[in-house]
């Protein structure tokens, strides 16, 4: 990847080109049952087992909307600051495919349930940018086709058929692959915070169609190509880079861009045209005669609003402003709701154990959570919720450091044992005799002996060889098996040697 591509400006032979990117994210709504039927949304399972006669489009079946799916769409709309439409329409989007038994997808076309909104993304250099959201609408997922199980046949599983999706359409406001990546990450964070989608891109519960075009800076929008169904943030960014460069190459050779649907092949790192021209889609949308308009009142919206947790941007601001955390720590902590929940639970327990105000402990706790704690979790491949060390246990460890029972260095070792055994910090410290020596008399006696044993070094130190101070600290640590309270050792040594 060269610098030009990272910035979103492509240097061509004839001048500079700018990328213009818009995303349509499909997010599976977290619900027990499907959008219009009572079949389960559960992932996996025996083929065609989570299918009702409605999902299989048997004649005479009628769709009945799932309240929870509407509620989650409204909550999501509120979380991205969007206009909620109390009146919206379901339309049929007509096309033929083996895994679409109805011959149409029930979707929303002209009047979606959620209108314009906005998302603030954060970039690596710390700057922020607002990305407009055009709309959010509810629609049905299709079934799944397996093309590689039989030489002449395609197998079709309808378990996903009819599962509710939210399609969230951005404005063409992104100019670099990095911005597109940050947008998807931010959207996923919000969906996971409010629990309207699990955001699991590997299982396909979140995927994106990526629209890419290029133009001369400030010129009219160019013709776009749509890259369908990209299922990871890394692939989205790679696909954009490849596609933008492909378009620039065509334009610089005097060609024109054909509006196309393309696929990204992660193995080859390239996009290729998906459907031939005569198959170009003409969806012939029309209002679904089986469904009356979707209507709800202000009470329904207010209830949805009240059910929202503190959103990541607000939480980040609170951690920075009321607890004094730096932006870096705050971003790391709010990226996942469970991370921030863990941190705040730990901080509150830490407060209880030490009796000190949260503002005084906040940064110590944040450094530990984002440092030692995340470090060991990453190494073990575990998420915060799977951590064998809960927030109270973590606070117990930090409290031992705070009151001088153990040193920060010892705390790292104790934490590793906690992580392996699930034992409490104070138990481990007792069992292994790790309590640091903070007894002044005991340390003074040790220091006196060391000074008596090393007259040469004492003389050199007093003669100006300051570096030898470290030698004396080392000797005390050696004599105490590393358990001497380093702060106290420093003080006592200074008192003895520098007088």
């Amino acid at each position: 990847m060269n610098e030009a591509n990272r910035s979103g400006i492509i240097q061509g032979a004839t001048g500079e080109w700018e990328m213009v990117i818009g995303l349509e994210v499909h997010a599976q709504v977290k619900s027990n049952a499907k959008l219009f039927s009572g079949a389960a949304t559960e992932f996996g399972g025996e083929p065609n087992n989570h299918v009702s006669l409605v999902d299989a489009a048997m004649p005479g079946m009628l769709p009945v909307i799932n309240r929870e799916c509407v509620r989650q769409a409204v909550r999501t709309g509120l979380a991205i600051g969007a206009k909620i439409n109390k009146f919206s329409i379901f339309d049929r989007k007509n096309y033929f495919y083996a895994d679409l038994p109805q011959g149409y997808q029930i979707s929303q076309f002209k009047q979606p349930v959620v209108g314009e909104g906005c998302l603030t993304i954060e970039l690596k250099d710390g700057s922020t940018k607002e990305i407009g959201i055009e709309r959010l609408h509810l629609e049905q997922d299709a079934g799944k086709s397996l093309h590689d199980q039989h030489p002449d046949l395609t197998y079709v599983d309808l378990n996903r058929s009819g599962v509710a999706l939210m399609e969230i359409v951005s404005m063409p406001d992104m100019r670099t692959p990095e911005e597109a990546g940050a947008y998807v990450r931010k959207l996923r964070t919000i969906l996971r915070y409010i629990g309207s989608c699990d955001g699991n891109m590997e299982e396909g519960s979140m995927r994106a169609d990526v629209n890419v075009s290029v133009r001369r800076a400030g010129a009219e929008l160019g013709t776009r190509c749509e890259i369908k169904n990209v299922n990871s943030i890394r692939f989205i960014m790679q696909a954009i880079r490849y596609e933008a460069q492909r378009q620039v190459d065509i334009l610089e050779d005097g060609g024109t861009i054909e509006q196309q649907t393309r696929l990204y092949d992660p193995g080859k790192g390239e996009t290729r045209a998906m459907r031939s021209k005569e198959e170009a889609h003409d969806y012939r949308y029309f209002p679904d005669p089986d469904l009356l308009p979707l209507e709800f009142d202000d009470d329904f919206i207010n209830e949805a609003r009240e059910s929202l947790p503190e959103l990541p941007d607000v939480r980040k601001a609170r951690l920075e402003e009321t607890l004094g955390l730096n932006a870096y720590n705050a971003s790391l902590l709010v990226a996942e709701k469970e991370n921030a929940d863990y941190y705040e639970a730990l901080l509150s327990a830490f407060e209880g154990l030490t009796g000190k105000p949260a503002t005084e402990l906040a940064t110590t706790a944040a450094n530990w959570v984002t440092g030692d704690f995340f470090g060991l979790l990453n190494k073990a491949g575990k998420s915060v919720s799977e951590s064998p060390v809960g927030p109270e246990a973590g606070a117990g460890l930090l409290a031992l450091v705070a009151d001088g029972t153990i040193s920060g260095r010892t705390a790292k070792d104790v934490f590793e044992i906690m992580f392996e055994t699930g034992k409490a910090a104070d138990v481990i410290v007792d069992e292994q005799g790790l309590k640091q020596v903070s007894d002044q008399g005991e340390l003074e006696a040790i220091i006196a002996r060391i000074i008596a044993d090393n007259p040469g070094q004492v003389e050199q130190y007093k003669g100006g060889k300051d570096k030898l101070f470290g030698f004396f600290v080392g000797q005390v640590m050696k004599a105490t098996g590393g358990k001497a309270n380093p702060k106290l050792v420093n003080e006592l040594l200074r008192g003895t040697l520098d007088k």
Partner: protein
Amino acid sequence: MSVDKNTVVKIAHLARIGVEDKNLDAMTAELNNILAWIEQLNEVDTEGVEPMTSAVETKLRWRQDEVTDGGKSEDILKNAPESECGFFAVPKVLE
């Protein structure tokens, strides 16, 4: 509004309905008759009238988010011309 023969061919293809060439002229004329008939509705002044969504005063029914259906793959597959290993089996779809 009216349609020509090419449009009829296109619509038939989109709807996956086979129309023989010899029937195209008749089909085009028939569709144009229907369109002309419906077009009479344009004579009615609908200024300020909300689109009608139902013939009776009724609202969309909602269901609770409960799993009440499924577990009937045999029924689901019963009418399929071909099925294998619990899947519908259809002629290979090539992308």
